[in-house]
């Protein structure tokens, strides 16, 4: 080990954006055949570090060394040529190009005439995908036609197939539910002697994969130790600068069986939604589990009329007619917190307060004229419930971290006087502190008689937060778990499609 230089050495790099310090004097080394975890809350500088290493951003000061020699990538390609590959968090795929072309960007093979031979490219791509255990993606399809999960796989394969010396994985499981696939690939790369920097929020992943972990806070390295030596509490404290264990306070169920169901769906069918029925009681948190692409996204969207159904009824408490549009849904007190926060959650050019107050903006104005004091007051009522610090309100929401953006989105849902929340993976890409706030908010919401339909890629969230949990497979409900039956193992086995017969048993 000591004889050969480390694959990567980061020596005191710093990066500023205007007045903002994204990285301050960060140093660490990464050896061949090693996975090093990179932990930190959103805004800690992880992504900036990744971008710097990938040649997207240039550090203001400090130096990088690749296998002992100085490493100063001019751009992405230069980095790639020197054997550094990255799977980005915000997937770097072009939706209007085919899977094959995307796989080989930026320099797909050309023939003697300098032309790109699509056919050959697609065959190659298919081979590569198969070699990485991805069979369901058609190499000729346009990326725009893939599910989020498929795209993430593609992103990962693209980073891996060039056999990089240094592999950077930024939140690779954000949209991925069968993580083993990834872990196997990581294993193979290690066997080949690659070094891997693994960025994730998910501690269990870090523990499972990484021998060592670097922790950033506010752009500075605060910890660099073998994972085994650190307790969860220690890790979180050093991440957040305060002690927050991801603890799920076992609150008594708030389900109100007496009242009529807050939301009941019967025999919903449509493209990608097969005969789905369930009832959501007031005060209940009903979980939805499933590997990606099992119809959960369409189910959630269809519930607020964003996705057309062929047949079925959706009944909302206190609202006779069928919900056909998000507008009608909102009127009926049903609000969706969508998957794509950046494009469907926040209004990026608006201030945080404007983002939150939007549903109530008409109440906040007389004869259409805005009354900013009133707006402020209305918003003040909800931001407490989501722990959104007040001093963020006048700032552009784009300037907030993912966690705080999500809080604002949830605050907006409360603003809309929602009686029934549809939360689609609300804790994705959200730091630990924010997660806690979100859990608390959910509890409080159902405590107050609201109802929540809750999909998450993180099983423990489902297991600990939900009163019941539906498991989707192949666009239909294959099981409903509750009480003792509601365990990660159960959920997984059902979600994986095994034991469809057992579904019936645990059903009721």
């Amino acid at each position: 080990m000591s004889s050969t230089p480390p694959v990567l050495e980061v020596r005191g790099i710093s990066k500023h954006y205007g007045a903002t310090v994204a990285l301050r004097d960060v140093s660490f080394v990464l050896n061949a055949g090693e996975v090093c975890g990179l932990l930190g809350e959103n805004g800690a500088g992880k992504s900036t570090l990744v971008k710097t290493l990938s040649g997207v951003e240039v550090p203001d000061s400090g130096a990088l060394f690749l296998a002992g020699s100085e490493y100063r990538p001019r751009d992405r390609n230069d980095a790639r040529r020197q054997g550094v590959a990255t799977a980005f968090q915000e997937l770097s795929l072009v939706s209007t190009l085919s899977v094959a072309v995307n796989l080989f960007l930026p320099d797909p093979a050309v023939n003697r005439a300098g032309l790109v031979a699509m056919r050959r490219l697609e065959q190659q791509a298919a081979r590569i995908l198969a070699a990485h255990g991805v069979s369901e993606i058609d190499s000729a399809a346009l990326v725009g036609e893939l599910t989020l999960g498929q795209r993430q796989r593609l992103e990962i394969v693209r980073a891996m197939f060039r056999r990089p010396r240094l592999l950077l994985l930024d939140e690779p499981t954000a949209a991925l539910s069968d993580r083993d696939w990834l872990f196997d690939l990581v294993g193979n790369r290690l066997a080949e002697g690659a070094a891997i920097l693994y960025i994730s929020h998910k501690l269990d992943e870090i523990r499972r994969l990484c021998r060592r972990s670097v922790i950033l806070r506010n752009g500075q390295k605060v910890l660099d130790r073998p994972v085994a030596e650190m307790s969860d509490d220690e890790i979180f404290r050093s991440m957040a600068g305060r002690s927050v264990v991801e603890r799920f306070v076992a609150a008594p169920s708030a389900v109100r069986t007496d009242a009529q169901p807050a939301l009941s769906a019967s025999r919903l069918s449509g493209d990608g939604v097969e005969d789905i029925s369930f009832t959501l009681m007031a005060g209940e948190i009903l979980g939805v589990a499933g590997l990606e692409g099992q119809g959960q996204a369409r189910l959630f969207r269809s519930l607020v009329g964003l996705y057309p159904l062929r047949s079925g009824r959706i009944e909302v408490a206190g609202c006779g007619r069928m919900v056909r549009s998000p507008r009608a849904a909102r009127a009926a007190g049903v609000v969706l917190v969508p998957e794509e926060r950046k494009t469907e959650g926040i209004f990026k050019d608006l201030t945080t307060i404007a983002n939150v107050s939007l549903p109530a903006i008409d109440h906040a104005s007389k004869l259409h004229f805005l009354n900013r004091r009133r707006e402020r007051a209305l918003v003040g009522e909800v931001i407490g419930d989501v722990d959104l610090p007040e001093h963020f309100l006048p700032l552009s929401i784009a300037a907030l971290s993912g966690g705080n953006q999500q809080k604002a989105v949830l605050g907006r849902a409360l603003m809309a006087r929602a009686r029934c929340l549809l939360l689609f993976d609300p804790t994705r890409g959200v730091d630990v502190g924010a997660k806690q706030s979100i859990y608390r908010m959910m509890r409080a919401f159902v405590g107050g008689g609201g109802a929540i339909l809750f999909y998450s890629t993180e099983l423990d969230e489902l297991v600990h937060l939900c009163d019941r949990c539906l498991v989707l497979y192949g666009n239909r409900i294959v099981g409903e778990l509750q009480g003792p039956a509601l365990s990660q193992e159960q959920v997984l086995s059902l979600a994986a499609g095994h034991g469809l017969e057992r579904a019936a048993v645990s059903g009721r």
Partner: protein
Amino acid sequence: MAPRDTSTLAEPMARGRAPRVNPELLPAAVVLACAVLLIVASTLLNAGSSFVPQLDAVLVTSIFLVVASFGQGLTILLGGIDLSIGVVVGLAAIMVSTLTNGSNAAILWVVPATLGFAAFIGLVNGLGVALARVPPFIMTLASGISFYGVGLAFTTGLAQRPVAPGLVALMNARVAGVPIPVVILLGFVIVATIFQNGTSDGRKLYALGSSPGAARVLGLPIAALTILVYTLSGLCAGISGILLAGYSSAATIDIGDPLLLPTIAAVVIGGARVVGGRGIYLGTFAGALFLSALETIITVLNLSQGVRNIIEGAIIVFALLLQSERWRVARG
């Protein structure tokens, strides 16, 4: 624009200072200052002249652009555009002169009728964009071309009629030494600004322009807002056309053509973003004044048209450069 994960840099900056004034006022102010500078410059260039009458001239001759570009600004706020403005201005001017045919009494019904027609064209655009999902650029281009044809059909072989003297007087008279158009102009600017930045509808427009996806999920009345905006744009063009007819007391169908591109330029110079979600009307107003002042100074320069064009083009590019610099700073 610069690809950068805002979340990484945001928090530290976020702590502490919160902008009290709307940050978009800055560019508006800068452009406005440039406009005033231009007027001062042309005052200095011409011995016999003084500031106030120059300002008068600029304001009066800018009103058509100022009014029309409000509509343009709204469509651009939604990430759209209105290319039918030039045509609508022309049609409105023709219509108001043909129908009043010199009679003040007619104004009472002709002006509403004309505005109605202009708004109708806007409505057609809005329906096309909002319901038929035709890209705004194409919808408004197409409707512009088509309605121009309608205008031709309407005017071919038709000898021109005089504009009602009432309108002419309106555009040429003064109250307390201030030209009435200037009064109209200021009134319009105030109303427009309040609508865009002081009402809940304005707020919704910003939201929709900023993130259509989120607006959809939240259930904002997207179609209604879009239709509203394009209708307003048509209406503004109509007003502009009527004022233009009154001002020049003689309307031709192509009278509005020279206005189309300036409306876009005014909006963008004023600090708006073509993809939507940003920009305030004061900026657009400043941009319009800037262009008008630029016209003035170039008109009074004793140059060949070729040189005039080169200077004008260069200055427009320069004005945009100022904008972009501001963005770099503002966006961290």
